[in-house]
């Protein structure tokens, strides 16, 4: 049973436009969510996170939105750049007691020049 779901395996957008990556979760114990970015032949790198006490977190071109009632979060990238082309993983965990993160399958973003 997948606790963290990324239903879109891939997404293609034009440079300068908005990229929206979606993630759904089923476990109501999750209270912290992260997005990781992964380039080929490299390990994932942390991008942005959000705690369940917030509904939005922004860092430069990246914004994560959390809808707790829908158990849904999304990552917005504005404006998208070709260097953003990568696989994006959504991950969820519980703060202060759980040692483990649960990852989605990832969404491959391609930003076309």
């Amino acid at each position: 049973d997948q606790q963290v779901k990324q239903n879109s395996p891939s997404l293609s957008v034009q440079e300068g436009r908005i990229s929206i990556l979606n993630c759904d979760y089923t476990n109501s114990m999750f209270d912290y969510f992260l997005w990781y970015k992964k380039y080929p032949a490299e390990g994932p790198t942390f991008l942005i996170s959000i705690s369940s006490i917030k509904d939005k977190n922004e860092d430069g071109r990246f914004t994560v939105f959390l809808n707790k009632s829908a158990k849904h979060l999304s990552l917005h990238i504005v404006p998208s750049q070709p260097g953003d082309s990568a696989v994006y993983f959504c991950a969820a965990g519980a703060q202060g007691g759980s040692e483990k993160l649960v990852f989605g399958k990832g969404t491959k973003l391609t930003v076309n020049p």
Partner: protein
Amino acid sequence: NAGVTQTPKFRILKIGQSMTLQCTQDMNHNYMYWYRQDPGMGLKLIYYSVGAGITDKGEVPNGYNVSRSTTEDFPLRLELAAPSQTSVYFCASISHYFRSTDTQYFGPGTRLTVL
């Protein structure tokens, strides 16, 4: 800081062979993790450790063993390699239990093929 380092980067094994994937971190992190990533799939937790001498199973531990004799090192052992263990393996670490100010740092991965 080198961060999290993994060796080797690539390896081909024959069925039934054994090997150890090495992972070292120089950030004095207590928590360390081993994940595997199969094509088109997310990262699945194999084993983790909350400190030297303490390890625990993750989601997919069968066929693997770990040890944690020092804070820095967290090797992953495959005793009898099987084709199902063909994957990319990532090691990660975090300073302590999960908090909003922390995130896991990942190594570059080891690509293992079992033929």
